[in-house]
């Protein structure tokens, strides 16, 4: 395991893509995507439904051909070396990629045999994975009787029967309750610890923040921002200044002062005492707060929060991630 780690991290990139394009009819589902994903890292694709996340993953996983652009996976060319790529990658699709009529163990044995294990080895590997994913009790139950979280785990287990060098996870936690979501996060962290590179898509900003080393924000087929979670947050300013006033009567005056000092719109809340505004840098915030003091406006509390990825998304696209149309992504 340790040697695997060293070997992986010692050299280069898991994914390198330039100008990937996929067109469906008139719609450019993916419109010139460039990617650089170092080995052994988690890379997050963040974007709303229909942004082109799934289509990009399906291209990189050799399932569909790009209409333009090029990519290499561990140095293998996507167009000409798909067999070599297939032996390094694994894909967990958005919908359970397993046979729901079969039991958990039957599914894992099937995939193990298809990977090249003998029937006996396949059974051992299946049992080992079921145990590692906490699914021993459900091993002999049909997958269609599993809960959402269990289904997701058996699906990921099927993807790592042979530990892949690069794992694609398409919206691994969509529709899961918080506990199941945390279990999936633990699995992803464990995989990365053992040297696997993970490319995951998500609509969940917290998820990208929690798991991903680097994040690409994708909208309408284009990457509109790329970087670490902190870089993305920094790009939209320091964060949000929230001020709680002692007296509701001061709200209008306080709002005017903040607007003048910060040069941004100030949001006032219906409780009459809370004000919030985006802040570009902390020295201006200090000045604005000082001004409030000089005007004898009493403050009970204030905070300067780092921006959430939701705010990042809002700033970058002009719309909230959750406000986006929820049509199904082309596949």
């Amino acid at each position, binding site marked *: 395991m340790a040697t695997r780690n060293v070997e992986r991290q010692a050299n280069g990139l898991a994914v390198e893509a330039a100008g990937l394009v996929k067109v469906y009819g008139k719609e450019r589902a993916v419109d010139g995507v460039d990617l650089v994903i170092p080995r052994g890292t988690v890379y997050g694709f963040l974007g709303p439904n229909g942004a082109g996340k799934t289509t990009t993953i399906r291209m990189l*996983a050799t399932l569909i051909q790009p209409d333009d652009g090029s990519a290499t996976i561990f140095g293998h060319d996507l167009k000409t070396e798909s067999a070599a790529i297939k032996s390094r990658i694994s894909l967990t699709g958005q919908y359970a990629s397993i046979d729901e009529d079969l039991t958990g163990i039957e599914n894992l044995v099937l995939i193990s045999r298809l990977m090249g294990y003998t029937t006996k080895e396949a059974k051992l*590997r299946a049992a080992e994975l079921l145990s590692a994913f906490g699914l021993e009790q459900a091993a002999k139950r049909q997958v269609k009787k599993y809960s959402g979280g269990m289904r997701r785990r058996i699906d990921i287990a099927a*993807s790592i*029967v042979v530990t892949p060098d690069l794992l694609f996870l398409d919206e691994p936690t969509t529709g899961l309750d918080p506990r199941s979501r945390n279990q999936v996060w633990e699995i992803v962290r464990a995989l990365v610890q053992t040297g696997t590179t993970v490319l995951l898509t998500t609509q969940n900003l917290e998820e990208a923040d929690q798991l991903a080393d680097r994040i690409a924000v994708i909208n309408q087929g284009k990457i509109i921002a790329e970087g670490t979670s902190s870089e993305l947050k920094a790009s939209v300013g320091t964060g949000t200044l929230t001020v709680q006033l002692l007296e509701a009567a001061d709200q209008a005056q306080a709002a005017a002062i903040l607007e003048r000092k910060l040069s941004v719109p100030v949001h006032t809340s219906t409780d009459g005492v809370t004000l919030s505004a985006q802040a570009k840098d902390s020295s201006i915030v200090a000045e604005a707060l000082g001004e409030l003091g000089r005007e004898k406006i009493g403050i009970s509390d204030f905070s300067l929060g780092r921006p959430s990825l939701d705010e990042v998304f809002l700033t970058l696209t002009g719309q909230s991630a959750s406000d986006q149309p929820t049509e199904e992504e082309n596949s």
Partner: protein
Amino acid sequence: MSVQIEHDKTTYEEVHPLNAIAGGKRPDPPNALASTMAFAHRALLRIKHVPEQMFDVTVFPIIFLLMFTYLFGGAIAGSTGEYLQFLLPGILVMTVSQITMYTGIDLNNDIRKGIFDRFRTLPIWLPSALVGALLVDVIRYSLASAIMIGLGLALGFRPEGGVMGVLGAVLVILLFSFSFSWIWTAAGIIMRSEKSLMMVSFLVVFPLTFVSNVFVDPSTLPSWLQGFVNINPISILATAVRGLMHGNGTWEQIGWVVVVSAIFVVIFAPLTMYLYRRKE
């Protein structure tokens, strides 16, 4: 043996989750036979878990045989006993042809459910996913044939070709049906839903089986229709099956079935695999 169990138990318990997650060493990819067998095993497991799907291969043949024998027997051949001699081989052909779309339907469902994508990213000989399932379909066809022939014998069907003739007839049906199924695997990839696939297969199979020599002697038909009936693959199969069961089959009849089957495979197996690889 007991030592082996003890050993397995120990490994099972000692594996730390992290090691299990990272411990999947890559074996050599399976050869075509191994992956085909794995897919055949999957199809068998599906029958075990969804036994209702065997309804059409067990109950349908019984209903069809009884219905057509007693409905048309008197009118067409003067007596049910005589008509059964003529009808059974044909209706066996018809029944089996009507259940050739199973693998196509399963494939259509696989595509919509995502497991299709997983199979396509595996380092396997891709046709094995279909060949394995089609081999299990052969078991379905055999079962349907056995039930229908058994019932026919009970009703008074007397094949002059004897046991060898009947077995030969069934083998010819199996060969034809396996080959014919490739049409439905290709259609299963193109069609958007199971429903549309069922409809298309119905639109093809229904006229093919009825406008054939299964129910009536083609010499009673208008001449323009005779032309179609004679080149209809179902007629070609029914003629060979009838010949073998009644002990007057010719190599020429069997040869035609082989030719027709080969044409189906040569056209539709590569087409299926082309579509399978290219499906978006």
